[in-house]
């Protein structure tokens, strides 16, 4: 069975041969470990896929990973202070509520980048202004949501033209231990958006994958209702037992292993963490995938330990 076939079997609860494992290396991490990182990547093809030695420019930072200031297609101004990590929106094109009326989403195809729905709202309005909108619920809140949603629906349609098997989306919906807005408000304003977007994908036979940072336990049910196939949640912010309670068996979980601890743990603690994750979340029919992201402060020895444990537990039965 190929890695790809096995991946879809896990997502579709169709008895994968092993637990799919993968990892992402931040550009800043590549730039720090260079050839040593390359060796690790070559050693673990189940995690990193096919990789050709010398194919990576260690110092290449693309898009918002570059240092400096840039404006995106929505008019949001990004600033990056730590090249190789992401930047942040420092200029919001709609600082005043009235601005929403004349606002038009990009006419060109600007894709569905990370932060495509909820975060886009605050990139446009500014975080505090958006929160006040959620508190006061003026008509402009719904108008803005509808505008972003209509762009997203069009963009999804374009994406679906190629009949992809899966669409990968990312939007950070949570904080460390709570949601920014009350779940009732989330269900009132945001759930209908995800429901419409996900339904479009499902109708086209495309699976839906959503990454979200932060604590999202209270809305996982809603996301499942909306038609989500794969969720990529943070362990630390949600807790393994909680994830088992609300999501296990109901939606495939591509577990974002606890990167807030990667720099500090010993290899033994890393192994115990991954062991616990598979013990609590795996099912013979599938529905569990494991994922690790390496920020540049994770010692190389820990990166290797994570890969070693992923390799070990992917055959957990």
């Amino acid at each position, binding site marked *: 069975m190929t890695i790809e076939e096995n991946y879809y079997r896990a997502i579709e609860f169709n008895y994968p041969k092993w637990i799919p494992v993968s990892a992402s290396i931040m550009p800043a991490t590549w730039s720090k470990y260079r050839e040593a990182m390359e060796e690790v990547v070559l050693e673990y093809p189940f995690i990193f896929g096919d990789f050709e030695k010398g194919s990576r420019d260690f110092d290449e930072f693309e898009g918002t990973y570059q240092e400096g200031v840039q404006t995106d297609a929505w008019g949001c101004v990004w*600033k990056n*202070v*730590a090249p190789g*990590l992401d*930047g*942040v929106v420092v200029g919001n094109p709609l600082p005043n509520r009235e601005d929403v009326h004349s606002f038009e989403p990009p006419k060109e195809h600007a894709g569905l980048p990370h932060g495509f729905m909820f975060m886009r709202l605050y990139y446009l309005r500014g*975080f*505090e202004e958006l*929160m*006040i*909108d*959620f*508190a*006061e619920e003026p008509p402009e809140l719904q108008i803005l949501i509808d505008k972003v949603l209509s762009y997203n629906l069009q963009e999804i349609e374009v994406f679906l033209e190629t009949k992809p098997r899966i669409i990968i989306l990312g939007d950070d919906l949570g*904080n*460390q231990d*709570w*949601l*920014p*807005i*009350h779940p009732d*408000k989330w269900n009132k304003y945001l759930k209908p958006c995800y429901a419409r977007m996900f339904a479009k994908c499902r109708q086209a036979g495309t699976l839906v994958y959503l990454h979200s940072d932060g604590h999202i336990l209270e809305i996982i049910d809603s996301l499942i209702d909306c038609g989500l196939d794969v969720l990529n949640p943070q362990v630390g*912010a949600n807790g393994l037992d909680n994830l088992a309670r609300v999501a296990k068996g109901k939606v495939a979980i591509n577990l974002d292993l606890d*990167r*807030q601890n*990667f*720099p*500090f743990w010993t290899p033994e603690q890393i192994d115990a963490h991954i062991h616990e994750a598979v013990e609590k979340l795996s099912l013979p029919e599938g529905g569990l995938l494991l994922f690790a992201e390496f*920020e*540049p*402060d994770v010692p190389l020895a820990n990166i290797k330990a994570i890969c070693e444990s992923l390799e070990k537990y992917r055959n957990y039965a």
Partner: protein
Amino acid sequence: MDDYSELQKCVITGKKLEVAETTSQFLDSGKTAKEILDGGLIPAMAIVGQKFEAGEFFIPEMLLAARALNAGLDILKPLLEESDVKPLAKVVIGTVKGDIHDIGKNLVGIMLRGSGFEVIDAGVDVSPAKFVELANESGADVVGLSALLTTTMPAMKDTIDEFESMGLRSKVKIMIGGAPVTEDYAKTIGADGFGRNAANAVGLAKSLVGG
């Protein structure tokens, strides 16, 4: 009129205009700015903090209350200055070098301001030298450091070391916070306190300045 409960209710429910109106009425009735602040506005913000800690208030409700409180504070501020009423303490707050997460830091600043502190916002990606400069310039009593990334937690230690090496460590209390930060880490790097969230940061800052 001595009962501040209506004013407090207006703050808590985020009624900006009513807060401004009621504040002015209290002034007209002969209350001093300090009495209104201590009796009405600050206790209201304490209740907001409790509701936030209890999971009853989320960020929208908290910010709305803070804006309503500011409507009252704007009226009182010139009067407080005139009568030389000092803030509880001065706090310089910022996100450390290499880190641009500012949402949490801003909420902490808002809660502190609403609780009677003067807050100097140092912004994000703030170097240790900049923290020292701002604290020194303003005569800050407390310095608040925020970090949301494990990669930037060491910059908290660097900042504390900078105060140390400039001979200014004993002049300020340093409190830290942010998603990956823990009480233990605060102890390890020699910070004076760790704040879990914006509500908790207020109590912490008060305890650090002996309030």
